[in-house]
């Protein structure tokens, strides 16, 4: 009995090869899955949209990316870029942590400071870096921000600041804690001179930074959905043993409770910051 083969092609190749080549994914075009709508979006599309998803979710950005987004082209001049943290208390593991975090973030510290124009208006700018130890505030972050406010006071410039921080940097102990007072003092002097400070809270802004310069702006804006609070939500849940209300510590929650002036999506930030800066330069009542 002759053998009978059931020669039904199992796949495209056995069928005689592909007639149409599959759509080639560009190797340099990875995708990101949006944690909100679960769709995967090509990076270039995210970038075309200020690193936000069509559903409104705001992805994190590096500080340098933010500087590029908010300032006028080629207007940014960085200050104190050579300042870097040391390990003042010889805290175990800190030196090594600093080295690795510098490699990961490609930044010497958790904040970038400088001078720029936004909508052609000169201002001082600080942007915190979440990829550097979650933007925690140690002595150098405190020092850079304080110097920036002192510079702005001397040159009578407004300050625009983007915050993102896990709080004070515990590896620098009491010296980190003192930065809260130090930065607040500098903000106060700047403020008492009648100068404008605009702060934009981004995800997450917590702890010692919330309890100092993040909440000291004349006007406080926030990105949609940003977590903003003093104590960590998990810590509160564990301490009180109660489930937290919906949307707890989100930017919208802070607006509802009167601690944030407005929520501004990233796409509108440059125009909002420009408008507010304009409203604060010139035109005040003359006596």
């Amino acid at each position, binding site marked *: 009995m002759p053998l009978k083969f059931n020669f039904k092609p199992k796949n495209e190749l056995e069928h005689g090869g592909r007639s149409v080549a599959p759509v080639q994914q560009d190797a340099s075009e990875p995708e990101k899955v949006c944690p909100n709508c679960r769709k995967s979006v090509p990076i270039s599309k995210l970038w075309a949209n200020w690193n936000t998803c069509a559903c409104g979710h705001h992805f994190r950005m590096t500080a340098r990316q933010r500087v590029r987004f908010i300032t006028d082209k080629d207007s940014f001049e960085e200050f104190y*870029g*050579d*300042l*870097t943290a*040391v390990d*003042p*208390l010889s805290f175990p*593991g800190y030196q090594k942590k600093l080295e690795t975090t*510098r490699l990961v973030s490609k*930044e*010497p510290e958790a904040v970038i400071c400088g001078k720029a124009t936004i909508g052609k208006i000169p201002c001082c700018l600080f942007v915190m870096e979440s990829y550097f130890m979650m933007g925690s505030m*140690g*002595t*150098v972050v*405190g*020092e850079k921000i304080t110097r920036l406010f002192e510079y702005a006071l001397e040159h009578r410039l407004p300050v625009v600041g983007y915050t993102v921080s896990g709080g*004070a940097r*515990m590896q*620098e*102990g*009491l*010296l980190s*804690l*003192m*930065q*809260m*007072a*130090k930065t*607040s*003092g*500098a*903000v*106060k*002097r700047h*403020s*008492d001179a009648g100068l404008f400070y605009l702060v934009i809270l981004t995800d997450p802004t917590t*702890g*010692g930074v*919330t*309890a*100092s*310069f*993040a*909440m*000291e702006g004349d006007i406080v804006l926030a990105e949609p959905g940003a977590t903003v*609070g*003093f*104590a960590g939500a998990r*810590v*509160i849940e564990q*301490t*009180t043993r*109660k489930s*937290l*209300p919906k949307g*707890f510590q989100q930017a919208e*929650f802070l607006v509802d*409770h*009167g*601690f944030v002036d407005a929520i501004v999506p990233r796409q509108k930030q440059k125009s909002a910051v420009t408008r507010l800066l304009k409203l604060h330069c010139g035109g005040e009542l003359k006596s």
Partner: protein
Amino acid sequence: MTAYDRVKIARSSKRLTSLDYIHNLFKSFFELHGDRRFADDAAIIGGIGQLDTLPVTVIAIEKGHSAKERVYRSFGAPNPEGYRKALRLMKQAEKFRRPVLCLVDTSGAFCGVGAEERGQGQAIAENLMEMMTLNVPVISILIGEGGSGGALALSVADRVWMLENAVYSVISPEGCASILWKDANKAETVATHLKLTAQDALELGVIERIISEKSMGQPEFYMQLREMLLTEFAALARDEEMLEKRYARFRAFGAATATTIERTSL
């Protein structure tokens, strides 16, 4: 004695609390309540005390001794309204040219839903800003625990003193150990590294004076403390550069530790 031994002493319910100091330091004390915005916070006691003949505005975090008291005082963990009451009374002190004495004893600002809803961070931030330019002498004494931002919110002062066994830290040793090493049992070692004792704080320049606990609670203890306060308040009142110096006092932290590196080494 290890750093952690001092943490345990500082937390002991038998330790003198702010009310003990208030009753013994002042000839009289008139307590004032409320932040005029939302509520009165029992964790912070405010009022006017008479230090010999000098009226002094007193702001004190109270932990309480007995279990019942401690619950009533929410274990010395202030809510935002406590910090706002403190600021109200400090502004009042400025108006009437009274010096301000803060007694600090807290494991930290209260951690809860309500505290967040009413802006714990904002309340602390405002105190830090306003205390920096408060135009009357301010002395803060850390008598037990000095827990992070919740303690700093009453410690932006011209002079900060600490009791010998008080501690002052950016985070509790337990919290630090569980975050960094996922092991709260390492708190003892961490306490040493955090440099939280009075001696450490003195060496870091965070405080000006350590107050001996040798005769703690005895009449001479309070008498000496009263003398110290009167002398210091008088000296500060004479100092025309008081506010400049207060700013410089805090401005100095970390100004020298920041070093520069070559950006190419990144």
